[in-house]
């Protein structure tokens, strides 16, 4: 996990304080306000002057993953972040991004607006981990702009859910680009709103959204996913929910908008409950009911 060795984290912020910026050859790392001041070209991406957050610019090929860590460590902190990540042409890289609360009852708010630009022929594997406390309010809004022949794999994982999570993700796929989104969310007494949208803007662009959602202990999950095909591209939505108890609710709303006759977009969605036969089977292998359910949930999230 990213926090195990914070010295190697390229951008590390706790509450509102930047604890560390590690700039190495090939990448520029600045706070977003500083980038706004010093690199005028970033302003068109920030839209308005940022208050806090990071700017990472991958200029040259690097052979290590980018890492960022933004934490809430004190009660009632309100973070309002604006992040910008720019991957230059032809660069292939991986980013491990952690946002978390260091304790369970901090009642923090984490608001983040992010823009990620993948320039022509670039590749990004973006691993985004959330680990929040039970009373936190979290609302990230990320936009990915994929230039020609760029490729994105976006893995989002939230196994320690906040009180509320409003997660909005928008992908713009240009010509020959591809995006592959894998979202794993386990909600425990949480209210979760997801809105994922992929725009297939360019010829032969491809987009896949895969959601695996688990609702436990009075959780409410609402996931709205959409693909807009505006060019001859291909897209697929794969949304699956698993309800663990009677008090939880999941609603999946997959939408397909085809605006080009040669585009091909499809979806599949299902919501199920724990398979009683499989539960009995695992208990008859010596696992307690809770252990068996946990194992089945782990398995479900991997499918």
């Amino acid at each position, binding site marked *: 996990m990213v926090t195990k060795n914070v010295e190697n984290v390229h951008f590390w912020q706790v509450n509102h304080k930047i604890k560390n910026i590690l700039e190495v050859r090939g990448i520029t790392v600045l706070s977003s306000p500083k980038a706004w001041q010093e690199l005028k070209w970033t302003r068109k991406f920030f839209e308005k002057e940022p208050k806090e957050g990071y700017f990472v610019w991958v200029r040259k090929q690097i052979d290590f993953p980018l890492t960022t860590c933004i934490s809430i460590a004190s009660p009632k902190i309100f973070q309002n972040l604006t992040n910008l990540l720019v991957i230059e042409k032809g660069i292939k890289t991986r980013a491990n991004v952690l946002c978390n609360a260091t304790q369970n009852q901090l009642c923090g708010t984490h608001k983040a607006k992010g823009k990620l630009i993948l320039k022509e022929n670039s590749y990004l594997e973006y691993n985004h981990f959330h680990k929040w406390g039970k009373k936190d309010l979290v609302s990230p809004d990320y936009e990915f702009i994929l230039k020609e022949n760029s490729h994105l794999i976006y893995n989002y994982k939230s196994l320690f859910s906040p009180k509320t999570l409003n997660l909005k993700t928008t992908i713009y796929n240009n010509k020959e680009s591809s995006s592959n989104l894998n979202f794993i969310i386990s909600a425990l007494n949480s209210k979760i709103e997801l809105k994922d949208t992929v725009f297939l803007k360019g010829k032969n662009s491809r987009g896949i959204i895969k959601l695996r959602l688990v609702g436990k202990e009075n959780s409410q999950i609402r996931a709205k996913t959409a693909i807009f095909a505006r060019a001859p591209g291909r897209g697929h939505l794969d949304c699956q929910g698993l309800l663990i108890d009677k008090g939880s609710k999941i609603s999946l709303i997959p939408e397909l908008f085809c605006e080009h006759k040669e585009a091909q977009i499809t979806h599949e969605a299902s919501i199920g409950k724990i*398979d*009683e*036969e*499989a539960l*009995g*089977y*695992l*208990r*008859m*292998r*010596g*696992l*307690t*009911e809770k*252990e068996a359910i946990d*194992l*089945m949930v*782990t*398995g*479900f*999230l*991997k*499918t």
Partner: protein
Amino acid sequence: MNKFLLKIQNLIVKGNEKEILKGINFQMERGEVRAILGPNASGKSTLAHAILGNPKYKIIKGKIFFEGEKITNFPPEKRVDLGITLVWQSPPAIKGVKLSQLLGKISRKKIKIKEGKELLEREINLDFSGGEKKVSELIQVLSLKPKLVILDEIDSGLDIKKVEMVAETIKKELVDKKVSVLIITHWGQILGYLKPDFVNVMINGEIICQEKDYKKVLKTIKKYGYEKCRECPFLAG
């Protein structure tokens, strides 16, 4: 030490609101190999699942004892802790969970795996062939360090060679090590390999006879069919 490993008294069990077991009396000693023969839907699998405590089946009346301890109301996992295990006839698939992962959680002892190594990194029972399921089941059960293994139709859906292979493993890993084995089967092919000490016949939720000579029972069933078992002159009494 209690003489009986497993003792069942007047067990009445319902499944889906229907009475399936209608007063079973049954016992097994330590190290014993026993078979229950019976036609389809006679209640054999229900008995196996009731012994393991599958919540799908409701015990209406009767008692189950294991090593002298009353386990009638124990949850399945506690029964496994005591050493009771079941090889399922049709085990369900557990999506996303590899066999090795499950073994890592349940194993009570290290086992040497000769057959089925290739199954370890596959999702449990997902797209397994009939033979692969049986091998996977045996691997799991052996890792539980059992005192009693119930084999539910272990020989169904297997070709002769696979039956031989499975029987050889059971003999080497269980029978020869004095682990008690209860074989549930409707066609009895595996009995020739495992040579049970006793055979019971179960029909319509009742155990109707007990016999030491499994060959005699098989011969009778072959000749008269299960329907005639109740009137069978060799088995009666």
